[in-house]
């Protein structure tokens, strides 16, 4: 945008020429306001445009805070450092300005209002002549302070019209900014509310997990640990924060169905018989029934409960699903669940040594566990043991002595090499996985 100022117009009379110059400024102002500049910058430029359009020596633009009843200066031209940055309005001033609307007020003629009495000296010293309340949609959003013109003449009615038109633009820019701030505040409140709800949900989930674990005195803390192991696997897979949380929740709740299984079966200090086993094996289905009607922020939680005893080779329960038929989240929980079963003492079986557990995971790749999940899990364990990460998740869950057993680092390292994507073994495992689907 350029100022419309062309020799073709030089023969027109003075007022026409002024109008054309001012119109150019108005056009640029419209352009400025739709620009993606910062708010401060927009108002500063707008004040320049208005001053330059009419030839005003000094001035300022302010934004109104309706809570503080203050006009706060956003842009200032030539008023000096000692001009107040914040000017207070009384209720009477506010009322009068609203009635006045977006029209210039001659400061010299408005001395009845408290506002002009309070700031009389400040205004007079700078030769301020016009005060323009920026009223947009029957609300004061700001104000303009305009000093004397370079010509020394009084403002003409047509110049006041230009002040109104440009003031309208500036007022709308401020109103828009206020609206944006309001929206941002709502969004922030909404986000906080959501965070609170999410943390409440997590607390509830953990309380549930603790309740499930209470029933099973020999495997105390099982659900909580499976939650944590599932979380580790998901984060080692590089999942996002929310997905990792979802995996943790799936782990916490995977055995929720055990709440309906008789306590004596769960706590049986011997290998349970076929009938008892059938009863216990209902827990994934029951868990699904319990979790399905609940609206979880993470969709796969009920599926994880239903299918955490399935195996890639189809020998699991309840449905004997194979390979890719098993939901991914269930595969994660399966690994976490089996790992916890192997690494904790059971009524009929002591926990196994870490090296054996690693061997078991490796041996069951393609049968029970997905290769990439075992790789991710052992990778996370190795990182911790080698001190490549500051967190001590495994040490905390399994105990320091257990995790730092002799030769364990080397064991994991060779296992990871063996199951690397290029090794024949993974190839076989992966092929087995695919073949079993068809």
């Amino acid at each position, binding site marked *: 945008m350029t100022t419309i100022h062309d020799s073709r117009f030089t023969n027109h009379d003075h007022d026409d020429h002024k109008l054309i110059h001012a119109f150019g400024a108005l056009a640029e102002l419209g352009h400025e306001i739709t620009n993606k500049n910062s708010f401060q910058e927009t108002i500063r430029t707008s004040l320049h445009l208005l001053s330059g359009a009419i*030839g005003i020596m000094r001035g300022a633009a302010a934004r109104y805070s309706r809570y503080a009843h203050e006009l706060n200066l956003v842009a200032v031209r*030539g008023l000096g450092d000692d001009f107040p940055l914040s000017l207070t309005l009384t209720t009477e001033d506010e009322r009068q300005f609203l009635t006045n609307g977006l029209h210039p007020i001659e400061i010299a003629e408005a001395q009845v209002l408290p506002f002009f009495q309070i700031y009389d000296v400040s205004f007079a010293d700078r030769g301020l002549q016009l005060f323009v309340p920026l009223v947009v949609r029957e609300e004061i959003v700001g104000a303009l302070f305009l000093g004397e013109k370079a010509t020394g003449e009084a403002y003409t009615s047509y110049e006041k019209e230009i002040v109104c038109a440009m003031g309208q633009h500036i007022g709308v820019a401020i109103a828009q900014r206020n609206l944006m701030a309001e929206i941002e505040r709502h969004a922030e409140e909404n986000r906080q509310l959501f965070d609170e709800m999410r943390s409440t949900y997590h607390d509830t989930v953990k309380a549930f997990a603790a309740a499930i674990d209470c029933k099973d005195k020999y495997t105390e803390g099982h659900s909580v640990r499976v939650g944590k192991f599932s979380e580790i696997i998901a984060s080692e897979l590089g999942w996002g924060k929310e997905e990792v949380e979802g995996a943790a929740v799936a782990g916490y709740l995977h055995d929720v169905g055990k709440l309906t299984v008789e306590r004596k079966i769960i706590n049986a200090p011997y290998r349970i018989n076929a009938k008892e086993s059938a009863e216990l094996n209902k827990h994934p289905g029951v868990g699904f029934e319990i979790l399905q009607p609940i609206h979880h922020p993470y969709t796969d939680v009920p599926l994880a409960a239903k299918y955490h005893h399935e195996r890639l080779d189809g020998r699991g329960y309840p449905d004997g699903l194979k390979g890719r038929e098993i939901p991914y989240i269930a595969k994660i929980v399966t690994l976490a669940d089996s790992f916890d079963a192997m690494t904790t003492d059971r009524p009929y079986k002591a926990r196994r040594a870490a090296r054996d557990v690693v061997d078991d995971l490796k041996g069951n790749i393609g049968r029970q566990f997905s290769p990439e999940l075992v790789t991710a899990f052992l990778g996370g364990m190795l990182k911790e043991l080698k001190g490549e990460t500051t967190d001590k998740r495994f040490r905390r869950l399994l105990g320091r002595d257990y995790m730092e057993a002799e030769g364990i680092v080397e064991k994991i390292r060779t296992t990871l090499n063996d199951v690397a994507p290029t090794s024949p073994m993974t190839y076989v495992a992966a092929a087995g996985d695919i073949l079993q689907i068809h």
Partner: protein
Amino acid sequence: MIQANAVPAADGVEERSVIVAGDYLNKLSGEQIEYECKRRLAAGCKELVVNFAQTELVNSIGVSILLGVIDIASKNGASVVFSDMNEDTVELFDMLGLTKHVTIV
């Protein structure tokens, strides 16, 4: 583009500074002029010469910034000279009252 040529006085203080405004005095070059002028005035300059030889158009922001320069100069007891303006610019400055505050050469 702004080119500034200073004429140093005998005692080393640049008493007279020449600032060349660009071909289109818009917001950016206008602010450069304002910055240059403030710097010169702070250094003790007593006469600011703004040369418009390369300036075809001055927009409202340009006018506003020049008004600011005039204001600062008068507060610092310095005078402002506008030189080599084209006809349109003279007429615009005349209409808006800038010419009342500066010497035109």
